[in-house]
């Protein structure tokens, strides 16, 4: 595997609807921003990995449309793996370069969840049509059943979870691309309408329209493009069983723990909370940040609940988490995982809108399916830890 760096990042503004643009026009906007950021031209991009999830946008194979925004005549690969789509698309573009087959590849993801009038019926079709769909399960209820178990097992409270939302919303105020901008405190979260118990409206992500692009380059090329690239130290991706009832214990995210250990071993990380400066985790629902912090070893089992409340995950805490405002405030679902990588890379470059001081290493994560897939990428200002 060749050493690879991220050399350019482009994000559109994410909003409830981006009525100003069509699907490929959004893709074009993100690609152009990433090229400008890297000071490259479209002709420099040798291959493109593209991610989206068709039913949210109501277009079968939107890549047919979006390939026109810069992909025509180039190798083009589509990725679609539920919520991990975005980060796995990043992983695909990374592997294009790491394999030695290309010197510069781009990952680009576009999703218009805002154009989908109601996302939950789409998410309901993700569960088994003959055994599970009648249960009315969607993404929110699947996160809610994790919360119920965590609360019963570890005494996690509604207030503990509300603090995660407060932290993300405060962070989003500093991110011009973030979708939901609300200056809220714990009381507002606790008093917001119940959606799927125990999760309330302000503990759930929005449906967002937008696009994101990330450019990967081989070591020799990356050094010429910029002096502050984000070096990719490693990646991991993992899958689990299909049925929701097959997970033995919803209070732990075991597959994420396994993926995390694989990545950390590869990258030489002994103590995640010490060795990683920022995490951009895929947490569309408050409870999931808690589970992810625990699964990845940032928190001990059952102790992740305290992290937001005690300020550990706030920008000035020991483990700043989702300084972008996270998925809580911006969720163009199939693009969201790549937004995590874009934001983690910007932190490493020192160019994030809500920049954490002295970041050298940042982690990007996404989950997808009915709690089924995880993808991780670790980026750093150093070539090696």
């Amino acid at each position: 595997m060749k050493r690879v760096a991220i050399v350019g990042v482009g994000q559109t503004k994410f909003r409830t609807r981006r009525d100003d643009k069509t699907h490929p026009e959004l893709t074009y906007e993100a690609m152009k921003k990433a090229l400008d950021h890297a000071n490259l031209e479209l002709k420099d991009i040798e291959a493109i990995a593209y991610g989206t999830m068709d039913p949210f946008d109501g277009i079968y194979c939107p890549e047919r449309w979006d390939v026109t925004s810069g992909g025509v005549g180039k190798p083009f690969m589509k990725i679609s793996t539920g919520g991990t789509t975005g980060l796995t698309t990043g992983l695909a573009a990374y592997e294009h370069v790491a394999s030695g087959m290309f010197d510069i590849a781009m990952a680009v993801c576009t999703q218009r969840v805002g154009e989908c009038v109601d996302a939950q019926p789409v998410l309901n079709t993700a569960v088994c049509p003959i055994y599970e769909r009648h249960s009315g399960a969607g993404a929110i209820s699947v996160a809610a059943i994790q919360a119920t178990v965590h609360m019963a097992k570890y005494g996690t409270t509604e207030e503990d979870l509300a603090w995660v939302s407060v932290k993300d919303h405060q962070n989003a105020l500093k991110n011009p691309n973030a979708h939901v901008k609300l200056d809220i405190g714990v009381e507002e979260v606790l008093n917001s309408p119940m959606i799927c118990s125990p999760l309330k409206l302000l503990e759930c992500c929005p449906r967002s329209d937008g696009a994101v692009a990330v450019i990967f380059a081989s070591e020799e090329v990356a050094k010429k493009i910029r002096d502050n690239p984000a070096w990719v130290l490693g990646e991991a991706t993992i899958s689990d069983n299909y049925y929701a009832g097959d997970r033995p214990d919803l209070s732990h995210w075991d597959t994420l723990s396994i993926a995390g250990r694989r990545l950390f071993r590869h990258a030489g990380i002994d103590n995640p909370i010490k060795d990683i400066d920022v995490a951009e985790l895929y947490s569309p629902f408050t409870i999931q940040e808690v589970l992810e912090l625990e699964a990845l070893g940032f928190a001990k089992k059952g102790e992740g609940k305290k992290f937001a409340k005690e300020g550990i995950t706030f920008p000035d805490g020991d483990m700043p988490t989702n300084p972008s405002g996270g998925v809580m405030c911006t969720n163009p679902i199939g693009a969201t995982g790549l937004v995590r990588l874009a934001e983690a890379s910007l932190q490493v470059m020192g160019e994030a809108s809500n920049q954490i001081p002295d970041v050298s290493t940042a982690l990007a994560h996404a989950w997808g399916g009915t709690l089924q897939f995880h993808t991780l990428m670790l980026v750093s200002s150093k070539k090696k830890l």
Partner: protein
Amino acid sequence: MVLKFEAKWEIPYVHSAGEHGTKFFEALREKKILGVKCPECGRVLIPPRAFCERCFVDTDEWVEVKDEGVITTVTVTYIKFTGLPDPPYATGIVKLDGADTGMLCLLGGVDLSDWKKVHEIFKPGTRVKAVWKDKPEGKITDILYFEPVEG
């Protein structure tokens, strides 16, 4: 002012249960729940499947499990989503006696208006039993919901 155009996906599908799954649905007509036992790891799997995805072996041994079990988790949905059940409805996972996996299902038989009370009634470990349709048709919805076992 940007123009917008409405569109809708309304596409009918007919999904196969497979030969293996068909056995499960035929048993439901007699108010029986069948699982398959993996010859390698010994887990009893519900929904039944023709192979164990952990051991990658065929699963041909059928086992009847109880229509009673314990609650793993619960949530009550209070918002109407397009095409999903009318709120409030309680979704949970029940681990049936004799099975090693849980079943994603509806929970009921209790007042769902106060979520905290519902979570107390259906707290993890609570014993529940299936409430069946009077005349089962061989569909998963033959089990209307699971309700708490009295006493």
